């Protein structure tokens, strides 16, 4: 126990730096990933002829190629072309595009999972596509997509460890530095960082679970399931 406290106190500024890098990558990556998920997911089900194809191609590319190669591409190939994102920027954009491609499938699946009758009713009410999606379909799909997006968020947080390959001093980098220090035990070095990753992931998923519960409550899904039955019984009585 005293080993751990000693290591924590010795490495506090470094762990703090690592934590900040990891948090930047996580929050930035999640933000980009959400935008990418929503845009590509909506494009995939759009009635316009070209958009679904474009969305499909982008998703297949980012899902089908290695994240590490994508990160190297952003970090090494783009700057000579005049677009220098820096290591943190490249990490955020790379993680966001890659996980966003997966996320767009969650979004598309959730939009398609909204019952057909809901879509048909919006047509019978002459609602335009943007209107029906924004006001009727999205609020219902949102509750369906949150568990999937939550999963991806946690995976992205842990996936930020690849930033090490871009030379960033994130949590994983400092874990490795601690490992090399004879004063810090191997278990201690990785144990501390395990815990820190876990805490970030926990914070993210708790937040999203809260959103999920709120979304379900709005749809009346968490209110007592028996309410409809009871209303029926009352109406009959």
């Amino acid at each position, binding site marked *: 126990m005293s080993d751990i406290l000693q290591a924590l106190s010795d490495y506090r500024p470094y762990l703090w730096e690592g934590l900040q890098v990891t948090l930047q990558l996580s929050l930035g990556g999640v933000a980009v990933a959400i935008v990418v998920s929503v845009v590509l997911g909506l494009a995939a089900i759009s009635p316009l002829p070209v958009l679904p194809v474009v969305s499909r191609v982008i998703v297949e590319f980012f899902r089908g190629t290695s994240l590490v190669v994508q990160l190297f591409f952003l970090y090494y190939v783009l700057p000579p072309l005049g677009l220098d994102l820096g290591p943190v920027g490249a990490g955020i954009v790379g993680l966001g595009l890659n996980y966003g491609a997966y996320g767009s499938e969650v979004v598309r699946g959730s939009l398609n999972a909204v019952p057909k*009758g809901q879509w*048909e*009713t919006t047509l019978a009410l002459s*609602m335009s596509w943007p209107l029906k999606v924004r006001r009727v379909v999205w*609020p219902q799909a949102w509750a369906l997509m949150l568990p999937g997006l939550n999963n991806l968020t946690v995976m992205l947080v842990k996936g930020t460890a690849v930033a090490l390959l871009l030379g960033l001093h994130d949590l994983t980098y400092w874990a490795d530095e601690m490992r090399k220090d004879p004063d810090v035990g191997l278990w201690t070095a990785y144990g501390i960082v395990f815990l820190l990753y876990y805490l970030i992931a926990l914070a993210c998923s708790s937040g999203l679970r809260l959103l999920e519960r709120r979304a379900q409550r709005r749809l*009346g899904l968490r209110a007592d399931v028996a309410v*409809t039955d009871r*209303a029926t019984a009352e109406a*009959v009585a």
Partner: protein
Amino acid sequence: MPTETAPDPTGAGSSETGPRIVMENVRKQFGKNVVLDDLNFSVDRGERVTLIGPSGSGKTTILRLLMTLEELTGGYIYVDGEPLTHAKRGERRVKLRSGEVSRIRRRIGMVFQQFNLFPNMSVLENITEAPIHVLGRSKDQARADALDLLDQVGLKDRAQAHPTQLSGGQQQRVAIARALAMEPEILLLDEVTSALDPELVGDVLQVLRDVARNTDITMLIVTHEMQFAQDVSHRVLMFDQGHIIEEASPQVMFTAPQHERTQQFLQAVL
């Protein structure tokens, strides 16, 4: 209603006196399965027509074609003399642009078997949503109209309730109010009581009887409630395997059907 006799400036053949709906050589196939074949019939303004027949005979498909929920395989549908989804250009059959389709579709409303209330909105919001955002009504106006409609269907006190807090019968009455809020000229009722507990059917049918009595909305009704069909409709069409095999007033249809299939069918359901 004043009758317009002035020539139609668009020349599209729309008129204020012709039939409300005309089905011309209508054909619908799902894959190789022919559901409707060379169907011809028309519905007059304010007329209420009930479609009966065994399941799979194509009744619901007709409503879905009118609501443009299904693509017409062949033939033409006219609403007030204007083509709904496909038009004749000389010998060619041309698909209309979605803008044209939606302009005419706006005259048509539909109530579904499964109610399909929006679960992310209150009862009142379900009704005001389309009038505000599609018809451009003010919020106050839409709200006042919705409360009137809820009063008509006997649910004014449930305006703020959530759809899941209502019984199936109440949900369907809200769905009827929602369709009426768009002031349709044509209302399509697709087995609106089939998903309800038997005890709840009566209230829904009573609401529809009132609508039939108090408005001149043209109605196409698919139902298994033969007493209701007899009470509200002017004409009954008996379908079998995608064809109209008998057509009569409800009195004749339900007391002295001519066709053998009709007799068998009515014997089975009555």
